[in-house]
Structures are given as structure tokens and as C-alpha cells.
């Protein structure tokens, strides 16, 4: 059963770095699993933690937030705020006993096509092992 499970990962990708990195992975014809549904955002700091919770509760098996490496944000410091908010959300997940592995923050630059493919591959494997998000079947959310 578990082997048939193809996770759905929602990816909030910063337009300047990680989204371009995804593009590069594509144009370089790198192989990676088709599990990620990319959503382009202007900066990783545009991602309100409530977006992540929404995606999670709607049944995404995992949510990836990806942006420029620290120091490289197009808006100078957006990703530093992203990191604080993400740490806050992670702590909330952990304290509530929710699977914090289902949310992830990664820095992927525009030139890191291979890193993008690697992140998606690794994360997909990890989520496959974890199984489907239980929120998928819940009615009383």
C-alpha cells in the first residue's frame, strides 16, 4: 500500500531564487519526482505561516518553503524574517504533537538546479516513509 503512495508537496518558492532554481532543474533535464506543486511567491517572507497551516490542513502531505540563501534575499532581509516565523511555527507543531517533518524550510539559489532536484527527491522519500497526511481524511477541521 505504502509503496503506491505518491506524496503531494506544496512548494512555496521565492520567485528570485528557488523558483528559478526549479526552472534550471527543468531546463537541465534533471530527474526528480513529480510530487511538488510549486506556488511562486515574490519572496519567502510573503508566506504567512497561516498559508502553511492551510495547505497542511487541506491535506498536503508536506509543505516546503524555499527562498534565497541568507544574505541573498532580493529584498535584503526578507528571508531572515521567514526563518523566525518558520521557527515559531515549527515550535507550535512540535508542542502540539503534530508531525513537524511535514513542514520544511530550505534555501535554494537560482543557480542550484541540482540542489533543487535533490531537495525534492530527498523530501519526497522522507514523506513517503511518513505516509499520507492524516488531515486528508479528517472531517472535523
Amino acid at each position, binding site marked *: 500500500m505504502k509503496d503506491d503512495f505518491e506524496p503531494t508537496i506544496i512548494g512555496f518558492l521565492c520567485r528570485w531564487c528557488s523558483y528559478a532554481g526549479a526552472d534550471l532543474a527543468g531546463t537541465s533535464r534533471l530527474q526528480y519526482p513529480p510530487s511538488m506543486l510549486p506556488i511562486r511567491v515574490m519572496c519567502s517572507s510573503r508566506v504567512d505561516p497561516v498559508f502553511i497551516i492551510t495547505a497542511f490542513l487541506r491535506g498536503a502531505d508536506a509543505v516546503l518553503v524555499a527562498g534565497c540563501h541568507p544574505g541573498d534575499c532580493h529584498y535584503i532581509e526578507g528571508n531572515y524574517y521567514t*526563518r523566525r516565523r518558520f521557527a515559531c511555527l515549527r515550535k507550535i507543531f512540535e508542542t502540539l504533537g503534530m508531525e513537524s517533518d511535514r513542514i520544511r524550510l530550505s534555501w535554494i539559489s537560482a543557480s542550484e538546479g541540482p540542489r533543487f532536484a535533490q531537495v525534492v527527491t530527498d523530501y519526497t522519500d522522507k514523506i513517503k516513509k511518513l505516509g499520507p497526511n492524516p488531515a486528508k481524511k479528517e472531517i472535523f477541521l
Partner: protein
Amino acid sequence: MSKVLRISKGAEQGVQELLKFLLESGKVKGVLTLTKINNNGAVDYSLITNSEMLKDALPLFPLMPANAGKLLSRFTLKSALAEPIAVVVKPCELRAFIELVKREQGSLENFLFISSTCDGVYPLEISSNGEVAKKLSKYWDAVKKGDIAPDIRPTCSCCKYFLPYNADITIALIGENIDKECKIFLTTEKGKKSVEGMKGQLVEGELKTQEVKNLLNKREENKKKLFDNPALMQDGLSGLIETFGRCIGCHGCSRVCPICYCTLCTFDSKDYENEPSTYETELKKRGGMRVPPNTILYHIGRLTHIGISCVGCGMCTDVCPVDIPLSTIFLKVGGEVQQTFNYIPGKSVEEKVPLTIFEKEELTEVED
């Protein structure tokens, strides 16, 4: 050690006299204090300018009809106070106000903050049925002994910050002989100036007495018990559904929360109504869904918004019509978030809210 004005009268009467002195000497133009509504134990905050009316003031009464932090923010949202006002508030109310000021929701100018070492407040449901009046003598006994007062709000019984931050004047209550004397600690210059000319004995004193330290330990222990309760949110999603399943979505908890200052909460806005297409896709996935939707989203969302600043005042639990232990959950989860950033909400007005600042080198453990 700090300066103390000692008055040989019971604490309650001493504070009443202090307020009277402040008003009549013109040191302040008004006083905000809890005031008696009837003889059943119901009180509310009032702003008083006529010292005659102070006869109904109950500044130290163990109830919190509203978190005063929220009220002070409303006074000063449009502009700072033009004239000085003295306010008598609980430590967590003062902390909440500081959090709001940091969020530009009020101004500290012209306030004279009077607080006390605090043994907690009773749940509001017993405030108007005469129950509080019956409990008072036990309450003051616990205060004198430095015990946790029985039947107070759950988060009061484990609150560590009952020694006020940022008060100009602190009334010592815990472990004190409050029937016979009132110890008025003058913790700031402003506090000292404000009592110049008032009758009493000026002495030196220590606020952090052995009794205060003991109470701190008792509350720490109590906190462990309260937080380790297995019914309290440790089983992830199913635990959340169990706990919040009975939420009726009134959003009273955010309405009374001092930190939730938004006049239109994002979770009440149109943005959080589902599109018909969302219902469709959700139903395709699940074959059924709770209506109205987004209950769990609201609660986790609120945690992300205000968990960092929750002062554990207990207002939210108090107003919840279906008895969800909100403040315990918010204090527990919020406390973990606060610890991540080494932050004590309301401790200092200069220290920025952690989500509004950053360090370049930090938190690499949350990156993958």
C-alpha cells in the same frame, strides 16, 4: 532593596488612601481602578476623577472583568494621555499593555502604573452570583501565607510573573501582614515623586521575600502538573480535533485577548470564507466536512499570531462558552515559542517583539 512607604492600615484601605491622595493632591487627574458594581462581588474598571467616588473602589479585588491592557490601549490608541492618570492593574495586564505599546497600539505617556504582587484572580463565572464574596476570606488567607489561592484561574495558579514588571508603585501582598499594614514599594523615580507629601513611614524593603520565592516554586510545580495533563494537546491532529471539536466558532477568545488587537480579525474576514470551489475540492477529497470550516486553522493561526506574546492572563478560557482550556494551551505552546527566542512578553518596552527582528546567524536548526 527599594524605598517603601509604610502605612499602618490594611492593604486595601492603604491603596484607597494612596489613590485619594494622588487625586486630591493633583498629582494625577484621574484614577483607573476596579470598582464595585453591586454587593454580590461584581466589579468593573472605572475611570474616576472625583475622589468621593473612590469609596466604591476595590483596587485589589481578585477579578479581571477585562484585561486592562486592552482598555489602556483603547484610551491611548488615537493619542497619548494629555494628563496624568494612575491605574491599578494586575501584573499580566501591565505586561499585555507593554506588548500592545510595542505594537503601536497605545502609549505609556502620563500613566502612573500601580500594581501588586499577585495571587491570581477568580474565573468570571462566579463573579456575579455571590460566590466570589464567599471565597474572599480564603483568598486573603492564601495571600498572607503565600499559598496558591484555591479555585483561581488555572493559568494564575501557575503564573511565574506575579511580581510586576514596569510598575512605578508595587503593593506588597504575598506573604505580608496585609490586615495591619500596607507596604507601598516605590519602584521608579516617578513612583517616588508621586507619593511626596503623603503620610506614612519611609523605609527600605525587599519585594522578593522568601514567601514570594516559595510561591514561585509552588507555581512552577503546579505548572508542570497542568501542562503534563495528557488531555492537553499532545496527540497532534487528533488531539486538536478532540479539544477544539466542541468550539462553536464565536471567536470570543480573540475578542477578549489583549494581544489580539485587530479591529477586524483576519479569521472573521472574507479572506477566510471558502470559495464554492474550495468546498467542492474539499468534499471530493473527504466526502464530508465540518461547517463552518476552518476551526483548527483559526486556533493554530491565532497561536502563530499571538503565541509569542501571550501573557497567560486567562481571559480566553474564561469567556469560552464550551469550556475549552484555551489559556492553558496558549500559555504552554506560546511559552515554548517565547523560550525559543528567550522572550518574556511585557518585560521591557525596549525589547522588540522577536518576530519583528532577526539575527543574521541563528536558527540554522530549522533549515534543511
